[in-house]
């Protein structure tokens, strides 16, 4: 039940991120979550948006290099220890996290959303399926 994250190559130069958000704004793409990873020479922006396919296509049209990456998204209660509880289940299932980022609230203010890139997405999904977690599906993204 992975969802589609868009990964965008960002040259290390002032204004690059803004150029990307301009494209998204111009096409009314709703940004649900964003994380930027960088090395000293370049960066990769990771985006969760309401319409991943449309966003990828408009970014490509604007000469960005964008690719889709499957990630797992979970809704948890926004409370102390919430993420720890989730990750202890990951531990049980031996799920290896490559990177993660989160966003809070959304339209349900009591919730937080955790997004994970894991080593073996399909297997991890299967392992985590029966654990009573709220794993988000692609079509739920626009609702949060």
């Amino acid at each position, binding site marked *: 039940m992975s969802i589609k*994250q868009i*990964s965008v*190559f*960002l*040259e*290390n*130069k002032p204004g*690059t991120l803004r150029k990307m958000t301009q494209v998204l704004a111009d096409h009314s793409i709703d940004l649900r979550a964003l994380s930027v*990873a960088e*090395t000293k*020479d*370049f960066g*990769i922006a*990771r985006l969760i948006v309401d319409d991943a396919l449309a966003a990828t296509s408009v970014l490509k049209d604007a*000469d*960005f*290099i964008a*690719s889709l*990456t499957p990630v797992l998204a979970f809704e948890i209660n926004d409370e102390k220890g919430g993420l720890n509880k989730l990750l202890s289940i990951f531990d049980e299932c031996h799920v290896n996290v*490559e990177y993660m980022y989160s966003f809070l609230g959304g339209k349900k203010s009591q919730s937080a959303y955790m997004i994970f*890139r894991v080593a073996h997405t399909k297997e991890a999904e299967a392992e985590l399926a029966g654990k009573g977690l709220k794993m988000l599906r692609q079509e739920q993204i626009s609702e949060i």
Partner: protein
Amino acid sequence: MERYYQEEIECASREKIREIQNEKLKKQVQHVWDNVPYYRKKMEAKGITPADIQSIDDLHKLPFITKDDLRESYPYGLLGMPLKDCVRIQSTSGTTGKRVVAFYTQHDIDLWEECCARALTAAGATDEDVCQVSYGYGLFTGGPGLNGGSHKIGCLTVPTSSGNTDRQIMFIQDLKTTILCCTPSYAAYLGERMKEMGLGPDDIPLKAGIFGAEAWSEEMRHDIEKTMGIKAYDIYGLTELSGPGVSFECSAQDGMHINEDHFLVEIIDPDTLEVLPDGSEGELVFTSLDKEAYPLLRYRTKDICQLKYEKCSCGRTFVRMAKPRGRSDDMLIIRGVNVFPSQIETVLLNHGYAANYQIIVDRVNNTDTFDVQVEMTPEMFTDNLGEVEAKQKELSDGLKSMLGIKAKVTLVAPKSIARSEGKAVRVIDKRKI
């Protein structure tokens, strides 16, 4: 007191030099006519035979030879001696299309090393000196040339080759090196490192340096001289003609004396190909007067410069050439190494990148910086930072192994490198020399 390696020729009268040149030129023309069909064809096309060349005044009748001829006749087309008489090759850097391989008989090596010995002696070297050769050894002529010259004089030769800066400094300190040979940018780097290590000019045993294979400014000379407490001499040469030592600086440091008993020099207008009057600025053209294995007649160097005929205070009578102002083709000399944009293109294509790139060369603290900007492609991109960095490193290693020097690879956004309608601007050289 000025020292000479071969005073009788270095300080010979102009008449004597001319006499030697006349003799050698006639012999050399006959040699290529007899042994190099490529030249013979070129001469026949101009309707001349060796009989038309009776003195250096007839030089202008001979056809020019260019780098294109050299490439066209790669590898053996210009060979003037049977291979069994050849003992060495040296080569310029370059892909198959650009590489020049020059051949040497033992006689050719001897005369090349003699030229280097003259340069070293002009810089004050004697058999009492310790001469550290920090030019690259191998196909590059810098190391082998100065190494040979240093042997001829009888210096204690320290063949460190380039790189490993701290070891270079250790040898300079421990062996009390007095003469340093390397590229000027490497000399500047060594100087800087010594300064960082707390070594002042008085702590450094060096007294002179011979720095060539790339362009450098007077400011850079003063910097190097001050930092290391030495006198810094320029040296000029081309692999095509032998290597370093075609010309060299003397104590006057006012132009480089051309070894005219071996290399006949002309200045031409690169557009009309007319020989220009004495003192004019134009393209340097050399004729090797006694190279056996790789004899070049009227070789166009593409280096733009000017000759000085006034008598030099050092006592040498050989004509002097100013530092070449620039090279008219696309070759870059970065940290003393020849780099052609086409080589970079080859590496990019081999690593799956498109040939959209830009080379940015600058000089920071007297050392050349070398950046290659490459456009990211969808094929090369992954979501994994480590993977992208690994590919970046792969490319950087590929460039290092092709060029012999390290380039900084920067991945830039697609289409961010300006396209032009005509010839692409591949090189941005910001060095102010």
